[in-house]
């Protein structure tokens, strides 16, 4: 069996692939890992989103992947260049946890749920259906999107692997 190429998506980073290969991002806490996929052209993209809105920025950001509202259009743009059609895209979401919810003041910004909510809203505005979601809770996740099959694997320390 041919070992598939793994493309690493860093924090506040986004990547696209086509045909085969794996997109992987590790240690999602309050961050959201968003994957978009066009099953016909087999173009896949993943973003590791840190914050909901670029309006929160103090200074102009150099990385569009950091914010949901800039990551999603940029991911779609790059995927379209590889041959994806926006009308065929489907999304999967993971992450958006509240890691410090048990600590007073530890999670006052509710970044995790806000990241998830913003992604959902932005996808809905673009009529991109969400075909799988594993968000919330109080634990971390590592995700892998397999371009050949369109499956998103979500792994966590206590809960093992879940397939979306």
């Amino acid at each position: 069996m041919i070992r598939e190429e793994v493309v690493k998506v860093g924090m506040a980073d986004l990547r696209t692939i086509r045909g085969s290969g794996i997109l992987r991002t590790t240690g999602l806490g309050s961050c959201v890992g968003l994957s978009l996929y066009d099953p016909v052209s087999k173009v896949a993209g993943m973003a590791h989103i840190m914050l909901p809105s670029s309006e929160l920025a103090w200074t102009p950001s150099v990385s569009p992947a950091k914010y949901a509202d800039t990551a999603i259009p940029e991911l779609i743009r790059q995927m379209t260049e590889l041959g994806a059609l926006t009308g065929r895209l489907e999304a999967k979401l993971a992450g958006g946890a509240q890691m410090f919810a048990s600590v007073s003041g530890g999670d006052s910004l509710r970044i995790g749920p806000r990241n998830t909510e913003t992604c959902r809203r932005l996808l809905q505005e673009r009529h991109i259906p969400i075909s799988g979601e594993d968000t919330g809770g109080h634990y971390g996740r590592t995700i892998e999107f397999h371009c050949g099959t369109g499956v998103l694997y979500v792994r966590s320390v206590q809960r093992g692997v879940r397939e979306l």
Partner: protein
Amino acid sequence: MSVNPLNRLADFQLDVLREIGNIGAGHAASALSLLLGKPVNLGVPKVRLIPFEETCDSVGGPEQVVAAVFLRVSGEVSGNLFFLLRVEAARVMLRKLPGMAAGPCESFSGLESSALGEIGNILAGSYLSAFADLTGLNMQPSTPALLLDMAGAILGSSLAQYGEIGERALLIDTRFLRGEEEWEGHFILIPDPDAFDPIFRSLGVPLP
């Protein structure tokens, strides 16, 4: 849009933060030595602006499973304080405590968890009181939370405020270790970006 406060941190300011890490972790390590009845050594604190992607490198990468005691610090200085060990290291350390036989099981027992939480609480308390004594600033820790999870999920989730101002975060990371390689852990203080002004003002450190 305002100025990124991190751009004003030059070598001298970073040295001052390094000294805070040294004094804070020094007190915490003495407390830990007392608890364990054995000396605990400290590394030189690492203080620098780290790209988000690299914040977990010193503890084994974003997927490394760690035991972390987390406290939110509020008051005149606010930030996040972590006492963090790899799970295996936490187990070895627990075994050294009088009356504690740490089991081989994957997760920690209730007793082990509360012992770790309490150790974290004592250590964080010594770290913060040394920091407060040095600066004369008022700071209160929250009750501690014990997390067993991937380092990336834990540390990454504490960086939102840095995400708003740039692409890097400031960590005051002090490694402590027992013996040559029996186990090691980290005290990591991540001051909120607006905490630097009060810290430097209290110490009479000029800001460029």
